[in-house]
Each structure stands twice: as structure tokens, then as C-alpha cells.
């Protein structure tokens, strides 16, 4: 291992060796090739089903990347010291965002299948939809998508680049302050674009249904699963002997606490959405949950209640679980799986009206975007250092202790 010595007593290995970097990129490229291969086969076999399956996979990856970007921004705006090490891994994950515009191509190609209800020729005949066509029309839809992708790519690129520049800059304090100043407006931009992207790509699948909390719902799931991914990456890197000081069991414990907290946050938001709709009992609102209570969708809905909330909530409660590698890793894998179920539950009832049935086409829709995301993360991980070596708050991160 090549050793870049860090100031302040921390002597962690800061860079992958060229061989390790090559192995990471090879793994990412292999994942992308396999993923795109399965996705291509699925597309050839069942084009219509693939359109929906792919949207699930696309949203799975995009929400996680947005969660990671939000994590990075929140660390800057709060001047967080503990998270200097883990912030770098989240910068890698947010590095998926510049790629999402390419990942969006199949969604755009299949837009007329997915959003037939308001893109199709009969949209204007339905009074409930006709009034929304000023917002829900193909031109404006694609203009908005272009705005979202530009904003995300810009933010992910700039915060990644500036953080990487800390490594050998003599003005790391100035750069840190610059990122701190930019992070507040960046949070605003990310929150708004994320909300409208959720409206455009998911909520408009059922154009007559609406929920004002929907953007927050998508954010909560994305942020939650990005923390799960961060936990997995941290456990892996620590297990490989990296991070003796900048990230330890104390940092893992904190990531576990955040994962626990956002388990509750998701449940709070999901219930808030359900509760108002249940209570008001208005047909155009309740239709969303009615579609998700048909036949086996009922079991998927219950799986979300228990799998997305009750089980991780109870599992992550004890301190010993959050501090144990295996305990946290199990939780993280479970949370990522549940985030996929959540996205599946949002999209697929629009195709499978008679109940849920998972097929290999759905797997293709997932593996394609996941493979590309793995490559995007690998490319970022292979370059630069494993944690912001020159960050002025690094000593603070090294000192972290949970009392």
C-alpha cells in the first residue's frame, strides 16, 4: 500500500495502489457490462414491461445518488467534523448523478408507454387531466428533466472537485468556507429539483392522483438507502485495513444512528401521506392505495410497513448492533432491498393491475442502472484519495467518540 502521510497524527493509507485502483475499475466495468447485458436482453424480450422495470431501477439509483449529494451538502452546511472521512464515499456515490442523464435515455424513449395517460392523444378528453396539461406536457417535461440533470451534474461535480482539491491545497480553509457558503443554496436547489423530479417521473404515472408530501417521501427513502450504502462501503474499506483513524467503529456507530433515525423519518412521512388520504377518503386520492391493495400488492404494502420500518427500527435500536460490523451490514443490505421494494411498489402497480408478480425482466431493469452506477462509483474511487486528506476538520473526525 502506498502511504501518503497525514498530518495530525493520523497515518491512514490515503490512496489505493494502482493495482487496487485497476481492480476496482475492472469490477465496476464488469458490473456495468453484466447489468447492461441483462437489461438489453430484458428489453428485447418484453419492451413494455421493461419500460416500467427500468423506471424502478433508474429511480432506485437516482434517489440513492441524490441522497448522497444531500448528505455531502448537509455536512458542509453544518460544518460537520465527524463525517470528514465518510463524506468522501458519499461524494463517490453522488458521482452517479452526472451519469443519470444517460441512464434517463431508456425512460425518455419509453415515455409514451409510461406516461400514456397524459402524453397520449386522449389526455385532453379527461377533464381531470386536461387541466394539468399546462404542466404535464412532453415539451415541458423534457425541459424540466434537462434542468434537473444539469443542476445535479453541476453540484455533484463541483462539490466532488472542490473537496478533492483540498488534498494538496494550501488554502484548504478558504475552499472549505467556499463549499460551506455554496451548500445552503445547493440544498435548496437539490430539494426542489428532487421534489419535481419525483412528481414528473413517479407521481405522473397516475396523473389524477396527487400528494404534496410525495417529494419528501422520495427524499426520505433515497437518503435512507444512501446511508445504507455508506455503511456497507465503510465496513468494507475498514475490513480491508483502510481507515484506522479517520473512520472507526465510532463513525460506523454514527452512520448506524443516522440509518436508524431515517428509518423513523421515512415511516413518519409515509404514514403522514397515507393518513391524510385515508382520513379525507376522497376517491381521486384513495385510488393510489386502492391500486396497492389489490391481490398480492396487499402483501407488498405490508412488506413495506414491516420491512421498511418495523424490522429495521427494532433491529437498529441496540447500540451493540450499530457497532457490530455484521449487525450493521445486515441492516444495510436489508435497507437497500427495501428501498427497491419501495420503488417497485410505486411504479409497478401501474402495469400489474391484478397483483404483484416479479419476473426476470424486473431484474434486468434493476441491474442495468445498478451496473452503470457501480462503474461511476468505481471510477471516482480509483482516483484521488480515500478521504479528504487536507480537510481542516480531519483532526476533529479522528477524535470522534460516542459516550
Amino acid at each position: 500500500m502506498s502511504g501518503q502521510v497525514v498530518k495530525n497524527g493520523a497515518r491512514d493509507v490515503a490512496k489505493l495502489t494502482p493495482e487496487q485502483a485497476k481492480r476496482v475499475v475492472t469490477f465496476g466495468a464488469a458490473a456495468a457490462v453484466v447489468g447492461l447485458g441483462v437489461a438489453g436482453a430484458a428489453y428485447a424480450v418484453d419492451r413494455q414491461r421493461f419500460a416500467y422495470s427500468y423506471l424502478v431501477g433508474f429511480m432506485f439509483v437516482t434517489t440513492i445518488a441524490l441522497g448522497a449529494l444531500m448528505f455531502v451538502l448537509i455536512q458542509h452546511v453544518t460544518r460537520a467534523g465527524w463525517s470528514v472521512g465518510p463524506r468522501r464515499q458519499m461524494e463517490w456515490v453522488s458521482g452517479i448523478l452526472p451519469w443519470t442523464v444517460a441512464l434517463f435515455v431508456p425512460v425518455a424513449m419509453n415515455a409514451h408507454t409510461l406516461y400514456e395517460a397524459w402524453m397520449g392523444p386522449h389526455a385532453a378528453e379527461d377533464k381531470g387531466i386536461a387541466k394539468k396539461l399546462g404542466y404535464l406536457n412532453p415539451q415541458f417535461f423534457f425541459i424540466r428533466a434537462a434542468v434537473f440533470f444539469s443542476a445535479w451534474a453541476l453540484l455533484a461535480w463541483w462539490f466532488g472537485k472542490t473537496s478533492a482539491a483540498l488534498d494538496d491545497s494550501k488554502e484548504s480553509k478558504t475552499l472549505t468556507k467556499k463549499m460551506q457558503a455554496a451548500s445552503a443554496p445547493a440544498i435548496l436547489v437539490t430539494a426542489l429539483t428532487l421534489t419535481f423530479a419525483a412528481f414528473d417521473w413517479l407521481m405522473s404515472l397516475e396523473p389524477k392522483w396527487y400528494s404534496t408530501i410525495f417529494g419528501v417521501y422520495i427524499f426520505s427513502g433515497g437518503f435512507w438507502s444512501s446511508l445504507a450504502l455508506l455503511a456497507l462501503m465503510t465496513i468494507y474499506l475498514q475490513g480491508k485495513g483502510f481507515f484506522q483513524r479517520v473512520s472507526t467503529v465510532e463513525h460506523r456507530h454514527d452512520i448506524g444512528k443516522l440509518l436508524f433515525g431515517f428509518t423513523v423519518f421515512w415511516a413518519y412521512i409515509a404514514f403522514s401521506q397515507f393518513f391524510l388520504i385515508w382520513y379525507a377518503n376522497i376517491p381521486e386520492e384513495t385510488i393510489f392505495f386502492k391500486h396497492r391493495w389489490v391481490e398480492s400488492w396487499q402483501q407488498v404494502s405490508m412488506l413495506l410497513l414491516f420491512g421498511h420500518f418495523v424490522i429495521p427500527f427494532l433491529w437498529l435500536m441496540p447500540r451493540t448492533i450499530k457497532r457490530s460490523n455484521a449487525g450493521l451490514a445486515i441492516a444495510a443490505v436489508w435497507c437497500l432491498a427495501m428501498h427497491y421494494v419501495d420503488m417497485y411498489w410505486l411504479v409497478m402497480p401501474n402495469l400489474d393491475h391484478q397483483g404483484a408478480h416479479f419476473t426476470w425482466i424486473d431484474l434486468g431493469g434493476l441491474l442495468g442502472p445498478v451496473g452503470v452506477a457501480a462503474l461511476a462509483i468505481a471510477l471516482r474511487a480509483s482516483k484521488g484519495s480515500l478521504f479528504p486528506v487536507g480537510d481542516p476538520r480531519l483532526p476533529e473526525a479522528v477524535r470522534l467518540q460516542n459516550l
Partner: protein
Amino acid sequence: MPEPKTKSRKAHALVGYFDTPADLFHCCETLRDEGYKDFDAHTPFPVHGLEHAMGLRPSRLPWIVLAAAAFGLSSAYLMQWWMGGVDYPLNISGKPSFALPSSIPIMFELTVLCSAFGTFFGMWGLNRLPRYYDPVMKHPSFGRATDDKFFIAVEAKEEKYDPEGTRALLEKLGAKELLEVEP
């Protein structure tokens, strides 16, 4: 009951202080390794890791809070079921007189409320509060525990307590103004 050998029956604790947190830390580690259990440290600010140096077990407070939370959750459910569903059902806009979704906000709130009470009063119970003073405070310099000195107090009820031996041990570790305080 066998008579304790050299234990002073009057003394409550042997109290002294150190000038630095490091000295206190070292003292606590030594006492812990010697097998002492009934001793306490008083410092002007939290000293990180001191609980490990003292060999304290993890607090039982989380279990009290969990029990209080479970009590809050179940009592909120039962209360609403009994009041709304059984004892006095009201027809409000044709909605069910009892349903789980409409009960959840109250269940959540009572869980949080009872957890907070469990934490606050559980802490009182574990620390034997309220109590106006502790005999340790009779040490004439004890006020400096809130200023610039780091106090150690070994209680006389401690199995290993021995007025001479413990005093010698603490003196060797550098404790100052060692005094036996009365109960």
C-alpha cells in the same frame, strides 16, 4: 454479622482531589484494577472515557425507557379502543368508531411522552434523586470540583475499603487533601 476488621464505622467516604484530569483518570484505572467498585469521580467538565477507566457497566436506563415506550404505545392503543370502540362509540361522518390508522398519532405521541418521562425520572431513580446533598460535599474544598480540581471519593461501604490502605494507595497516586468525610 462478622465485625469488620479495621473499617471506621463513622466515615462515609475517603475524599481527595487531583490537579489534572489525567491524574484522576490514572487513579480511577488503578482503583478499578485493584477491584474497587464503590467509588466516584467528580470533575468540573466531562472527561471522555472516564466511565471505562472507572469500570462502570453500561447504564440500565435504555431498558427503563424501552419499557416506558412499550407502556405508552400499548396504553394509547387500549385507551382509544376502549373509549372510542367499546365504551362510548360516536358516529362522526360515518367513519369507523375505532380504527388503527386514526389511533397511530396518539400512539406515537404517548410513546414519545412516556419515553421522555421514563428517561427523565428513570435517571432520577438510578441516581437516587432528588437528594439535597451528598456527604462527599462535606469535604472543605469540594466546591473546587466545579472549578479546577478533579475529585475522587472512595466510599466506606466498599468491600476493599481500609482507612489506612486506601489512603496510602491514593496518596501514592498523588491525591491531595485526603479526608474521611462523615455520613
